[in-house]
């Protein structure tokens, strides 16, 4: 399976070259880890952008509703989850229904393409929910963003979920913690230190990572502020700095086609 590292580096290369214009004219291929942050940045910061000159890539982006995304659930193909930007703050029934339908659609994409051996749906739904709940409960963002694609020839599924909120460091600081570096905040979150006063919270990111790596043999990238976490089945978890700060948190994962049953209970405690 190809790694998420190169597309993530490419994302930062595009961001590095962009100020008020996101220039995608020379781009021929983009993965969700690249598409979704660019879509959110363009839409939420009202940036100008240039579509790729490559017609196929341009049509793909349009098909995924780049850059604004969908705000209401629309029945779509079983190969992808188009770009959605959902309310992270509204608690009304319509917002909750949209969120419920998006998660359900993503699980359908997974089951139809990656496979649904026993326990896999439960494990995936646990993993995705941890991230969406973090956006709702901690990010203070107005919108959350999600996009997923299955690559039949490459035999993997890519999903990216993000927000433009206060970052993990911002969340700790808001709760009175003296944490000054994004890297330290990300480590604390990954080691289970809850930003909330309740002692028994803070299981989310660890459970998510353990499920994606352990249960699915996948790969995970987490970006918050100017810190990045990376781990795969083959690579031990590492944290590094980024040259550009992402205002908010980005979570991306890649999982290969599944055939084995999963006992999700092995990855939650």
């Amino acid at each position: 399976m190809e790694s998420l590292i190169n597309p993530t580096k490419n994302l930062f290369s595009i961001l590095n070259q962009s100020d008020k214009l996101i220039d995608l004219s020379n781009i021929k291929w983009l993965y969700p880890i690249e598409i979704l942050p660019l879509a959110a940045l363009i839409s939420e910061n009202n940036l100008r952008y240039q579509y790729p000159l490559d017609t196929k890539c341009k049509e793909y982006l349009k098909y995924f509703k780049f850059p604004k995304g969908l705000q209401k659930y629309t029945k779509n193909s079983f190969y992808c989850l188009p770009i959605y930007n959902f309310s992270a703050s509204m608690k009304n029934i319509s917002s909750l229904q949209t969120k419920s339908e998006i998660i359900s659609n993503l699980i359908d994409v997974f089951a139809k393409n990656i496979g649904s051996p026993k326990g896999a749906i439960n494990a995936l739904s646990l993993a995705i929910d941890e991230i969406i709940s973090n956006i709702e409960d901690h990010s203070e963002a107005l919108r959350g963003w999600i996009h997923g694609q299955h690559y039949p020839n490459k035999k993997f599924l890519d999903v990216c979920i993000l927000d433009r909120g206060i970052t993990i460091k911002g969340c700790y600081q808001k709760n009175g913690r003296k944490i000054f570096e994004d890297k330290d905040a990300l480590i604390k979150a990954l080691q289970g230190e809850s930003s909330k006063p309740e002692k028994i919270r803070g299981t989310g990111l660890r459970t998510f990572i353990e499920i994606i790596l352990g249960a699915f043999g996948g790969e995970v990238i987490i970006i918050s502020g100017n810190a990045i976490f990376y781990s795969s089945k083959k690579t031990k978890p590492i944290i590094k700095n980024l040259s550009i700060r992402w205002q908010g948190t980005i979570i991306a994962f890649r999982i290969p086609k599944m055939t084995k049953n999963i006992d999700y209970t092995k990855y939650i405690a």
Partner: protein
Amino acid sequence: MNKKNIFYIKDSKLMLATRDIARHIFRNALKKSATCISFDNSSFTSRSFLDEMYVLCTKNNLQIIDMSEELKPLYNIIIKSHKQNKVYAPMLKIQKLEKTFA
């Protein structure tokens, strides 16, 4: 127990995911004066949803019933975690590197 006081979660037609959805379903159960929340026919849920539902039910003296065999291990960890006031989650060892990623 009086059957009409059972609130069937499946009637909400929502994914059993996220704390917000749990709060919404719980409010509906309270509006209907439920004394029990049934997970009948629910084969998957998330930790956040179940954790929130457990906390709300415990605080308001509602009972959670009909938990499927598949969900019981998750539910049991949540109960154990609250009763012992202890986090049950996988441990991660992370290497902090000084090199810039990109």
